[in-house]
């Protein structure tokens, strides 16, 4: 059941986008999300989707994985369609809305597919570093995000194994009625919670024996250099955003 989730999975190849600085990637994504929120014109949105396709081509990630991400979001898309049909929006507006949502999903999946979770956390730490002015511990936030991201695949694997264990005892998720499915989910969630707490405790101990201290300044063993390409990409996003914003105002 849970095998086909590809949200948050990293795909390893060597591409220009993979080599980019995670901070630059995050900044671009933020700019892009703002862009697709304000852009409300079919011509502009089509241009944006062409740009998205171009960047997707640059990543060298198989198109199948993007399709899988979209497919995983199908319930959201269907809900959007139903809601809008109920409200009674025109088909043109609905199409535009769907186009905006799909481009947003695809663009953010570029980030997760080309950046390992630890790098995303590093990017988040950098992007949020302006909060230091308010005396917030940004490294704490980044640490919890990176730990949470790191555990997604592990927990998926584990829940698969638990589902199998319960299936062998007569509550199969796949081949059962609605009531049976509810029991199967309950029988999966309890061990999953208990084991996650245990795992968190183990992780805490493992970090402590390696003298981890949240209050000490930390270094990063990956040297994420800021290259010209990063500046270029962020600048391009900024430029497109300003252009679109100007055209919307005018």
């Amino acid at each position: 059941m849970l095998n086909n989730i590809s949200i948050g999975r990293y795909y390893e190849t060597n591409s220009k986008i993979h080599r980019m600085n995670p901070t630059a990637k995050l900044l671009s994504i933020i700019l892009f999300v703002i862009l697709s929120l304000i852009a409300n014109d079919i011509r502009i949105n089509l241009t944006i989707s062409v740009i998205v396709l171009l960047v997707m081509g640059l990543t060298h990630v198989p198109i199948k994985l993007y399709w899988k991400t979209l497919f995983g979001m199908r319930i959201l898309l269907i809900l959007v369609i139903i809601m809008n049909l109920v409200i009674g929006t025109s088909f043109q507006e609905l199409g535009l809305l769907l186009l905006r949502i799909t481009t947003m999903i695809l663009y953010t999946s570029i980030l997760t597919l080309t950046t390992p979770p630890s790098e995303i956390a590093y990017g988040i730490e950098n992007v949020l570093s302006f909060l230091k002015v308010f005396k917030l511990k940004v490294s704490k936030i980044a640490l919890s995000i990176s730990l949470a991201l790191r555990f997604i695949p592990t927990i998926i694997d584990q829940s698969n194994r638990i589902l199998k264990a319960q299936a062998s005892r007569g509550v199969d998720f796949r081949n059962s009625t609605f009531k049976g499915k509810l029991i199967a989910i309950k029988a999966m969630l309890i061990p999953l919670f208990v084991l996650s707490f245990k795992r968190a405790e183990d992780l805490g101990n493992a970090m402590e024996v390696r003298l981890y201290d949240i209050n000490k300044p930390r270094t990063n063993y990956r040297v994420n250099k800021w290259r010209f390409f990063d500046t270029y990409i962020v600048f391009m996003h900024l430029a497109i955003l300003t252009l679109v914003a100007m055209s919307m105002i005018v």
Partner: protein
Amino acid sequence: MEIKFENVSFNNVVKDINLKIEKGQIIGIVGSSGSGKTTLVEMIDALVLPTNGRLLVGDFALEKGKKYKNINELRFNVGFVFEDANEQIFSNTVYDEVAFAMRYFKYKKEQIEVQVKKALMMVGLPEEYLYKNPFNLSHGETKKLAIACVLAFNPEIIIFDEPLTALDNASKKNLIKIIRTLKTRYNKTVIIVSQDTDFLHKIVDKVYVMHKGNIVMAGNKYEVFQEEELLNKYDVKAPSVISFAKLVEKKKGIKIGYRDEINDLIKDVYRYVK
């Protein structure tokens, strides 16, 4: 109950397996990690379905992509003890945990109580444990509990996936005793997946060696475990009882026969020295 694999494959993990397991045998499956042992036995319990070929468990045929409404008829006959016992525990008491499966296999209430007590006694958990919280048990006790869960609903085929992890020495001996009674008294089919050939050599009748998804060696345990060089090639250690006998034969030219238990071997050696 007979198990029959007919050209069964699963993705690239298990490749084109033909195999027949008869009733009332103890089968050992060995192989290096990642050789597809666990996937092979998971198919018997329909936890994964074959992507190619057909698998017959009794009269139940398992094929690719089908939905089985009556899957519990198969699962009632197949018990599976998983490697990590912690992954299946979710009840508040040991009693509920053991009885959990039986409720889905249509046991009557009075029967359940008798069976639960019997199963706990067999694995060597005292009766005071019945109303304990299973989350407070030690790792080894949890493993015993998982074995009890399977024994309680009395399946025809019992599969053990790496049964020795977390068990202490006394429990290991007890497990060997349990498996032997399952065969001799109840005539069950037992399938054991393990890396520990010393353990397997003590109890199994037949051995299958797996390597990269294929069954590369099969047969009587004495036949298979004798081929020390071939086993080494597949990253499997020959049982020490046999390698000792082979070493003696090679160095001194004395034949001392292959024994199941180390104690019998010691007696043989002692007799010879005397």
